[in-house]
């Protein structure tokens, strides 16, 4: 009780008040001095940290929006978009940190692409402007689409800060770019204008299968060149006929297939993937790792046997 009483009736003497006040002021001043002395270095360290976090945020935007046309590794996707991770496009950079911890990007090898198209600004301004505003004209027949506008300002889904982040992410490829021979390079200006080869005509059964593909809403999640909406939840099916054969030969298929007998032909693989989507889940989808259990599992009921046959026939023809 007496200690409570002591606290309650606490009244510091005049000397204690003056001294405590002075000491507090001294502490306050030294904290400010301490902060002021190393402030520039600390600002630089923090700037580098937020720059790193911009790369992280940019990676998220890239996987959500860009990877389906430019590839999950920035290697490019045939018919959709050129490589962004290629040395041809990003050049080569390194990160340098000075004695004050200030970080900057040093260009070792500039982008060849910018020279090729005679862009007068920086790589950053080029990426930002194409991402934000798209390309107003089709530059080559190699691509099915012209570049979309991604900025909210032009009706797209991204805010300005997201465009800056994804730009920063793409520039970061320059630390270790893909060799040009492992990437899909864009044609030089004026090239690639030849009309596209006429596709092999579909048989009536395949044509019917294509109608099923569109009618059943597969386009919502899967992209096929030239067919309806360009879904990006599941894998791209541009060349699924050829890909199916690669899949059944892969080590991953042999070890990860669950509850189903292994397919022996591409057509069997496609049929299996439609009827039992969870039997084997592909590792990489346009927006990152493929989610299991997302694809509906009741196509056996939704499709008549004939529809299924036609659908498989159609998909298997895509090579």
């Amino acid at each position, binding site marked *: 009780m007496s200690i409570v009483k002591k*606290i*309650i*009736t*606490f*009244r*510091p003497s*005049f*000397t204690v*008040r*003056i001294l*405590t*006040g*002075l*000491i*507090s*002021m001294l*502490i*306050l001043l030294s*904290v*400010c001095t*301490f*902060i*002021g002395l190393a*402030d*520039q270095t*600390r*600002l*630089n*360290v*923090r*700037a*580098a*940290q*937020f*720059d*790193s*976090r911009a*790369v*992280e*945020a940019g*990676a*998220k935007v890239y996987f959500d929006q860009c990877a389906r046309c430019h590839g999950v590794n920035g290697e490019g996707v045939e018919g959709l978009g050129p490589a962004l991770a290629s040395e041809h496009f990003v050049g080569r950079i390194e990160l340098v940190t000075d004695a004050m911890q200030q*970080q900057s990007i040093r260009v070792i090898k500039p982008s060849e692409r910018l020279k090729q198209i005679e862009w007068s600004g920086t790589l950053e301004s080029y990426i930002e402007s194409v991402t934000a505003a798209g390309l107003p004209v089709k530059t080559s027949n190699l691509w099915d689409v012209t570049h979309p506008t991604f900025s909210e300002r032009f009706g797209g889904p991204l*805010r*300005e*800060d*997201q465009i800056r982040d994804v730009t920063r*992410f793409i520039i*970061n*490829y320059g*630390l*270790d770019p893909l060799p040009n021979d492992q990437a899909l390079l864009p044609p030089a200006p004026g090239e690639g204008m030849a009309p596209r080869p006429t596709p092999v005509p579909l048989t009536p059964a395949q044509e019917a299968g294509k109608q099923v593909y569109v009618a059943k809403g597969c386009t919502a999640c899967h992209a096929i060149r030239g067919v309806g909406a360009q879904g990006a939840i599941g894998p791209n099916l541009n060349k699924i006929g050829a890909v199916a054969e690669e899949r059944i030969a892969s080590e991953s298929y042999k070890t990860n297939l669950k509850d189903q007998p292994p397919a022996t032909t591409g057509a069997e693989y496609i049929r299996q993937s439609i009827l039992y989507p*969870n039997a084997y889940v592909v590792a990489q989808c346009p927006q*990152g*790792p493929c*989610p*299991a*259990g997302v694809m509906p599992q009741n196509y056996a009921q939704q499709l008549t046997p004939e529809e299924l046959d036609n659908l498989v026939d159609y998909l298997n023809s895509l090579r």
Partner: protein
Amino acid sequence: MAIVGQKLVKQIQATGLKATMAQRLDDAFTRFTAGLSWNDVRGVLRGDPPAKPNPRVKPHTEGFWFHIRPTFYHEAVTTLYPTFRLGLLSALFFTFEIITGIFLMIFYTPSPTYAYGNMLDILTNVPFGKFVRDLHRLGAEAMVIIVTLHMVRTFVTGSYKKPRQFTWFTGVVLLVVTLFLSFSGYLLPWDQLAFWAVTIGTSMADAVPGIGPQLNLLLRGAPDIGAGGLLRFYLFHVVLFPLIGVIFVAVHYYKVVRFGISLPPEMEAIGEDTARKVPPEKRVNFLPDILTNELMYAGVAFAILAISCATWYSAPLEHHADPLVTPNHTVAPWYFYWLQGLLKIPHMIPLLPSGIAGEVDRFFANVFGLTPKVFWGVIVGPLMFALLFVLPYIDPNPSRRYGDRKVMLTFGALFAAAIIYLSLAGIPTGVPITGFGYVGGDPASEVGQAFIPDEGVGPVRRLPYEAYVVGKFDINAQPNTGSAGLDRLIRDIHNDMEARKARPDPLGKMLSADASGSLEVKQIQSNLRQIIITIDYTDVNGAPAQFKKYTFLHAGSGYAD
């Protein structure tokens, strides 16, 4: 001019240059202090007894700043009890927030396009920027606590009773202003934390019967918070609430001086107020005793604040606000947890199966014709404040003595306990033991949220980049990745999953016993990795299900710092 010059020359001739200069300087000094010469001030600071007649009263009659302070206090209120200096500290923090706030204003633009970038600039490009931001933020939160404690103390000592009813009333206005100041400032960084906390907060306005949508529109400037809402909150924060605050601090303080600080209850006869009748021998002069005391408190308080901001405290800044992505477990600022807890009451009556929660909702709809949000959020919440406002006018007991106020003090304690309990219920984890207020999704997604929270750092991002090893690791197996930190993380995830398998969460959900998981580390760029947690489990319908969550980690992002 000529006359002044002649006088000066004469004085120099009479007393010499040095003495003249000293005398003139002292004159200027005396004018500045409104009546105290340098020697008087020196005496004050040395604690010398005053001369007679006491020159130290002069500033109180001559100058503005001292004129609004009393010349003396009763000795009995200069000890720590009864005031604990909480009113003084409230005023100091209010002033401190204005000063640090003006600094921050210089670097801030109230627009969704620039606000977040401005915050980054303040942190990375403005000298002392982070320090001042931390001071402003911590100061604001400290002020909420201090003002609340100040209210608690005036309640406990019965200082709201006659004649101080209106002092209390203006005090409650100041409490509301303090809360709204904090809350309106919360939005300005325009990060996810801010955006969603304020979205939840303002949705309360939307629930007001009849005029809800209009009120909401007035507050947000649009159906959802955007450029209009940010500008409005900025103006609330830097103009409206500070203005109301300054006016009410003035009225409040005028009343405090007018009635004097109430003496400890046991010193007075019941129903009597003797605070202003101070016998000469009980007087403690403002100069120097009270002033030095206050300066000491100011020094200590701000030194503690500065040390905190230089060491452990760092104001949060999450990802840029995104109206399309609601982060998991969004919460209001902590001083509104109680309101969030209040809103959960109908859904979360402890241990009731979820079907009955629906019944409770229907009961409210049928009996009161109100949704629970309207009832608890729009009616009960503000009613609690209304109760505070009218307290001095409805309390019939004239006695301030503790012994005579057992009922009121018990009621106050219950009120405080209820606020604390509701605040705990307002957090997603709910109240410990009873589980009241727990909100959680699927247990697998809760594992994801625990290790890779949507906002905030979390264990996965806290583990430094270098501690990760590229590869895919089974969470159920004994980890052997070659990195002690990664092994520990995998074991932590394993333990967390086991805990969720062993016992149900307060809503009765459990992770299926067969659940297994993996942690995968992928190299995306030479200094960027992706970390993916995958959990395979059996869902409530017995079907196999999978949960996936990932984050990116850059070598230099420094979350661990």
